């Protein structure tokens, strides 16, 4: 079942890390509804947030792939219909 998932990522404030993060989404051709990068409040770290409309298994796979990126410090998946759950 397709649901709205919000993925919040804290990652190193480097273009190469951001590029790798985008690559995970591009390679899997995941439909992204919103995508934003903002300061995290901590020097050297950025906050990336994006919204996916996919099934739960796909969202989980995306999160697992994000955990593998060097420079990603934290990944939180929030599913709109089922409430927020930290991973």
């Amino acid at each position, binding site marked *: 079942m397709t649901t709205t998932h919000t993925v919040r990522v804290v990652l190193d404030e480097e273009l190469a890390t951001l590029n*790798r993060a985008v*690559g995970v989404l591009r390679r899997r051709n995941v439909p992204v509804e919103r995508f934003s990068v903002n300061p995290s409040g901590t020097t050297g770290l950025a906050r990336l947030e994006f919204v996916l409309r996919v099934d739960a298994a796909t969202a989980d796979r995306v999160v*697992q792939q994000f*955990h593998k990126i060097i420079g990603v410090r934290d990944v939180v998946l929030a599913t709109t219909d089922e409430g927020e759950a930290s991973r």
Partner: protein
Amino acid sequence: MGEMLTGAQIVCRTLVDAGVDVIFGYPGGAIMPFYHALPEYPQLRHVLVRHEQAAAHAADGYARASGRVGVCVATSGPGATNLVTGLAAAHMDSSPVVAITGQVARAMIGRDAFQETDVIGITLPVTKQSYLVQDVAELSAVVADALAVAQAGRPGPVVIDLPKDVQNQKAEYRAPEHPRAGARGQLQTPDASPGSVEEAARLIAEAQRPLMMVGHGVILAQAYDEVRTLAEKTGMPVITTLLGISAFPEGHPLHLGMPGMHGEVHVNRAIQHADVIVGIGLRFDDRVTGNIAAFAPRARIIHVDLDRSEIGRNVRVAVGLVGDAREVTRRLVDAVVPRSCEHWVSEICGFHRPSRPAAPQELTPDAILDAIHDASDGRCTIVTDVGQHQMWVAKLYPYRRPNTHITSGGLGAMGFAVPAAMGVHLARPTETVWAISGDGGFQMNMAEIATMIQERLTVKMAVFNNGYLGMVRQWQQFFHGKRYSCTPIFSPDYVKLADAYGIPGWRVRTPSELTDVVARANAEPGPVLVEFVIAQEANVFPMIPPGGSLSEPIETAPTPAGD
């Protein structure tokens, strides 16, 4: 105040301090400062290849055989793009490789300068990490990070893109703090929970038809003893995937063989009948599973993998155990109760199909591989290319020692064997190394014969010559109405080719010549080339058609329409 070094010297010094002793590469404009510094570091042996693709495959072969990071070097632009196939092969097969590429000076980046390419961009999907070095002060830390990241956890390739002016800049050399904070999280090894291990042990105890499937992760973790102990304590038969071959001794009473597209009938049937599968260090890729919906329909799967994202990625998993294959298997050994699976093993024996005897005068892959094995009593490493010969070796060669089978599995890169075998030789200089290729793949990188001679690398090269791109021809025969479109392939006279390079060469046409030629090939102190002329339309049987179920093997060639 530390020593002032150029960026190029810092790279060399950091590599030396990390224990790197071999690098494979090819010089060019943007990497010239590195090559200028290199003679000051004689601890770094440089192997000059004939094409950068070979440098990456050789570094990969070195890494797989040694368990250490393989390093390759290329210039910017075409040098770097030529590395890409090798990096992709290392990425797919989880091999720790660090590639150092020259880049145009920082002021020129983005201006389409001569030999400029966006190497970081091009290699992004086929690398584990990449660095564009902007500041010489960071260089030693970047090189140390790259070496650590390549090898940590699930290994993979890392690119360091090095602008020419950064190579020339001077900075104080400081031994790198290691690892830096950014990489620390991903360098930690996860540990499976005790509850999951107990649950897995319970499933194994309750199973009627349990199986083990072991992959490359067992070789990477050197979990040979643990896997064997688990098999023997439980009586579970063991299947080895293409990259898991030699992780478990062939000839062991519990060893079944290779699964999947070219797996033996009894191996695939065992999977389809199993009620529990313990998969260790494999990713259940499509060549192993066939039609995923029909794969192991009765089995509950226990999946052990270092990479959490692999658990449940391709198959339904009952218990996922994330961690190092050696550590998790050791804990499984402690947790399982001793049992046997005699009824199940004899049931699998009933699935066995007798092999068809060959005509006595026919030079078959079986006979060739027997001769190569017997000539060194199995004390050699076999590196294969991609295609029919690769499957014959995987199915027929009796591996007894761990990690003595090296091949390009995931990417399936033709041209891999010859350069990768050069790397294997440098990792295992006292061991005989055979590079076995088809006539197609061999011609892709046969220029590396010159590298072997110049660098004194001893590789025994075997070419299985059937005059076709054999695996594609087989698919054309089975699935494309026998239209052999663009698969007949011309070869040079390999004996004359060997002669042109000044190395011994032989052509073998009959089984009676085999023992003598292979013995002479092994006895030669340097590289040799042996052409084995095999039947033009020899096929690899059995075969699961692409997308088919493991229950539906093709065991004979299709009869042409009208016969």
